[in-house]
């Protein structure tokens, strides 16, 4: 294919702010977020759709942003880990991961937070089995998941009490 590949103009709302960019069709959504927008909280882990470190919410649904092209998010609403905190105030999930020691090295944490956020948006009071199933697409090699599960339960309780989103 000798001809130059046309770039595609896309508009995506990310954490409430609208961005317009021209992108190469093969640009992965995770690299759009990290390199085009400078939002490096979303991590690149396995690059092969296993580890879930790159999990973001697209129109409210969790997706692996290494397994989507940025052009597919055109017109969509994206939420990344940077969208969780309210200024200096941590989101209840972030606070709970900190309180419960739900992380060690932290590499998988942005993805786990977004998977947990997706779960709690659909099920405000999940039991342990539901939490395990919800985070099955996120690999963590440090915690053994026990404290992650404790953190999600704590966050769920806080959010139910506060009526938080």
């Amino acid at each position, binding site marked *: 294919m000798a001809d130059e590949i046309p770039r595609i103009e896309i508009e995506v709302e990310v954490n409430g702010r609208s961005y317009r960019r021209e992108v*190469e069709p*093969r640009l992965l959504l995770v690299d759009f977020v990290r390199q085009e927008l400078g939002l490096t909280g979303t991590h690149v882990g396995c690059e*092969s*759709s296993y580890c879930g470190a790159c999990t973001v919410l697209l129109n409210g649904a*969790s997706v692996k942003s290494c397994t989507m092209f940025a052009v597919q998010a055109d017109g969509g609403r994206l939420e990344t880990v940077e969208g969780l905190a309210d200024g200096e105030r941590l989101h209840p999930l972030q606070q709970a991961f900190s309180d419960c020691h739900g992380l060690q090295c932290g590499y998988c944490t942005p993805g786990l937070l977004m998977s947990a956020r997706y779960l709690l948006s659909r099920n405000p009071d999940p039991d342990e089995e539901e939490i395990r199933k919800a985070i099955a697409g996120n690999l963590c090699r440090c915690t053994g998941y026990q404290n992650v599960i404790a953190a999600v339960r704590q966050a769920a309780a806080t959010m139910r009490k506060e009526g938080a989103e």
Partner: protein
Amino acid sequence: MYPKPFRYHRARSIEEASRLLAELGEDARLLAGGQSLIPLMKFRLAAPEHLIDLNFLPDLDTLRESDDGLQIGALARHARIADSLGSPRWAILHDCASGIADAQVRNRGTLAGSVAEADPSGDWVPVLSTLEASLTVTGPAGERTLPLREAVLDAYTTALEPEEMIREVRISAPPAGSGGAFVAFKRTAQVYASASAAVHLELRDGVCSGVRIYLGCVGLTAVHAEEAEAQLKGRTPSGDGLERAAEAAAAAADPQPDMRGSREYKRMLVGCLVKEAVSRAARRAAGDTVRGGHLYG
């Protein structure tokens, strides 16, 4: 890891998608959920020059249920199927949809895409085979109906012409007094199952009047375990009949040894899965609510 450069086409209607597919020929691939295609492209095991994105098409992300049955649109994602089909009649579809890969993949991946890929380890083909599903296929010459049993020819090979696409998957309503179950054994969420069994049972006075059993991951396509069906027909779905059905299913399986297990192990696993699936299907046929889904080990 990056795919080779490709040209991106956003189809605005099913006719346009079909026309593009015919025009661009074998250098083009359809992009639906992309959960297999995109990793394949990143590994450069696939390098299409054109991608035709179906995700912006209206009216394809559909799930229509009527007294006659179910029509599943080409863009209906596993998560939507898991969330929407709560009725006991479709329990086997819920079993399957709720356990495919992980939540993120279920939010993107589609049932029709899984059928079109025809991966020997895919979950949907054995399940849909027990329900005698058919495909509505669109191409330049118009639409045609293709029974699923004629649609999947071999591993990664379907009877669809290169310029054809699945518009929807149709399933007739199973008769009253019937039940189905799908049991797949996986080592972890993200991987394909080591083996799976899909069972549809029709019971009359506690006796199996109709049986369909298909196995996944143990052949180039779903394995139709006809001898296992024969062992159950006219008998109760339990005891010696069930033992013999499980043995027959294990014998019908033709698994390849790989990192998921040896031939012997997978055969043994098939027997266990068939027994579990038959038991769940029988309880459902009798009107019980039975939680189903994938097993992890």
